[in-house]
């Protein structure tokens, strides 16, 4: 458990470092929309990374794409364009 915590701490440190590099510039220039998108992306990144560091089961997003494309894929297999 401790090692998991260390991993999460490391991820948070990286996120803090990234914010230290980017945020002051955007703040000074008043780039509000950029700051919002930056925070959203960073939040997503930290969320997924922490979930992975805590060994939670994360389904690969490719499973959903596979499910969406199954009919098309089956059709291509049927006409012999996929082996």
């Amino acid at each position: 458990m401790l090692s998991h915590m260390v991993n999460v701490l490391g991820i948070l440190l990286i996120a803090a470092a990234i914010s230290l590099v980017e945020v002051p510039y955007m703040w000074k220039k008043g780039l509000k929309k950029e700051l919002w998108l930056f925070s959203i992306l960073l939040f997503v990144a930290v969320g997924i990374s922490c979930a992975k560091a805590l060994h939670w089961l994360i389904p690969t997003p490719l499973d959903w794409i596979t499910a969406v494309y199954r009919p098309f894929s089956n059709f291509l297999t049927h006409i012999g364009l996929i082996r």
Partner: protein
Amino acid sequence: MPGQIKISARQIMILTTLFTVGSAILIIPSGMASVAKQDAWIAALVGVGAGLLILYMYSKIASLYPEMTLIGIMETLLGKWLGKAAGLLFFITLFINAPAPVLFYIGNFMTTQMIPETPILAVNILFALIVVLAARLGLEVLVRSAELLFPLFTLLYISFVGLVVSDIKLENVQPVLEAGVGPIWPAALSFCCTVFIPHIIMLMIFPASINRSDQTRKAFFIGSLIGGLMLVVVVTLAILVLGPDLTARNIYPSYALAKKISIGNFLQRIEAIMATMWFISLFFRITLYMHTTVTAIAQIFRLKEDRQLVLPLGMILVIMSIIVYPNVPYQQTYDTKTWVPFSLSIGLLFPLLLLCIHGIRTMWSKKRAESKG
């Protein structure tokens, strides 16, 4: 931002070549040999031909809207909000389908072939660091580094081909067309989908940030052709030297090919030097994906500056690269079963749809002009 960056035709040619060679040089011979056996080289040639047709369609779209990027074209043709939504969906799905898997390939390649005791995450983070660095510095720096690294890449490629040629066994490609032309099509399709369809992201930089657009179409084609032919040669050599069975059984046949190099029992074990070639081409492939994703997000949300988004996106890239493929068999099934229809839909059907809408709109506006006049 687009419009401010200007790159020349020669630079776009070099960039396209490196992008075309990209990840395919590592992975493509294996999948093709397992489908088309000893005829994989014919399939590769067919794939290059079909790929050039697809690229013709892209350059057609680009020439219809010479001042716009792909996002701008989507917004004009599909309407503002639908265009934005389509663009966002396009680039999110592309992000988990293209740059993250390519980063997985490099990590997997390193940890299975060269440094097996290192965790894959360490390799991916190191590689992602230089990708992020390059994407943050922008397109101009990227194309100049492409110009710098291209001679090294060419040198490595030529020496690779030259040193392997002595091991050729012509029996390996015989009999030609043993199973008829049937297996050629799926192999050619997978070649085309892996190598040429991702070129649609070049539409993000291709018309808008070029200073002389008349020469760039040619440069774009020549670059893709050179890259495609380089791949055809690699596929052919893999078949000729290793034979179709061994090529299909290796995950990285071109690396196995480099291991074969042995000149007089003296010049051997230089496969690590040859791997530099793959690092260069994979680097440009991932960085171009990252750059286009960032510019696409910036254009969808009308941002003034985009390089601030690179670092968090790089973090997502690293974590996605170890999530997307749970294991190598999953990757192989995905690449054959789902990547092909997915890339066909974004790289063939979607541009065709855009062209249709363009045609309908021009017809409509003509009719309107006639009825008014």
